[in-house]
């Protein structure tokens, strides 16, 4: 557990450092994710240690956005007179982007024969909803 956490933090630290030094537009943790992926692929021992800890962190990813979300409540006035228009732009463009992205994926998967993989056992949208 401690070794896995140490490795995760080390990857983030290296990522932050490289992003700073090279002035990359990519955030450090995203570079750290790439580095961690290379480590996981390179070593079965790393994978055995990091996989359960990583899954544990990601299981409650939603929690990690709560502090920043509370900050939004205090800054709603920053949206100013344009608030309603910005909400319209965000809602419509998010709907369009999700729909267009998913359909583009589906179309190219079909065209290249990468198949349509379905969750075994049928409908994706029932009960607990879909991704």
């Amino acid at each position: 557990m401690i070794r896995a956490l140490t490795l995760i933090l080390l990857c983030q630290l290296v990522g932050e450092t490289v992003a700073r030094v090279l002035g990359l537009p990519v955030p450090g943790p995203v570079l750290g994710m790439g580095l961690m992926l290379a480590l996981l692929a390179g070593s079965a021992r790393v994978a055995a240690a990091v996989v359960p800890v990583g899954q544990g962190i990601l299981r409650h990813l939603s929690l990690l956005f709560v502090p920043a979300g509370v900050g939004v409540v205090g800054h709603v006035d920053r949206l100013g007179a344009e608030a309603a228009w910005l909400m319209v732009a965000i809602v419509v463009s998010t709907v369009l982007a999700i729909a267009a992205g998913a359909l583009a994926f589906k179309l190219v998967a079909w065209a290249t024969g990468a198949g349509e993989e379905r969750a075994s056992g049928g409908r994706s949208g029932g009960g607990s909803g879909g991704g």
Partner: protein
Amino acid sequence: MGDRAGDRAVADFAEIWSYLARGPLLWLTLTLVAYVVADALSQWAGRAPLANPVLIAVILLGLTLWGTGTSYAVYFEGAQFVHFLLGPATVALAVPLYLEGARLKRAVLPVLAGLVVGSVVAVVSALWIARALGVGPETLAALAPKSTTAPVAIGIAQSLGGSPTLAAVLVLITGMVGAIVVTPLLNALRVRDWRARGLATGVAAHGIGTARAFQVHPQAGAFAGIGMGLNAILTALLAPWVLRAFL
């Protein structure tokens, strides 16, 4: 007698409160309590899209801060420990990528298609709609990177001349909107492929969308993580060009 005991209890409570409110323990604990309550409500509602745990926890905490007259700075003293974990969690997104590696390799072209289309539509449509509604150029600069993860969006907005705070607010609102609309939207469009659903969500609604995807299906979560990571890079390259075309 009773009144005096009551007064003392109130005074004691005020003293304990002011002691606790000074340290990080109180707000860290309340952040977790709010999330546990929100997650239980979300589960109880069958993970209905509107019962989003982030949204519920934020509302509960927002009301608590407002009711107790606590500033965000004081709250964040405690909540920063949770906030800090966003970095390690981003690194941990390598785990589902690694586990889904074989499936990802087979889907490189669809992933790239979903990424490019989703990313371009997110930036272009937001700027086009906002400009048509009369939103000014400085606000457009903060809006352009709204679909990408917060640290990247802040950097992009700043380099374009927009307000970093406004950019962060717009990013978080986008994430919550995405997490709420994705399930009914993709059900209506009959997209049943978990890979397509996840990727599109990560591209359009970054980490909050990815959190929603993990809640629903591990494969959707893995592809959402890929979408979020790749879109961080693509938006950084794309947003300045698109914004220039709109000014």
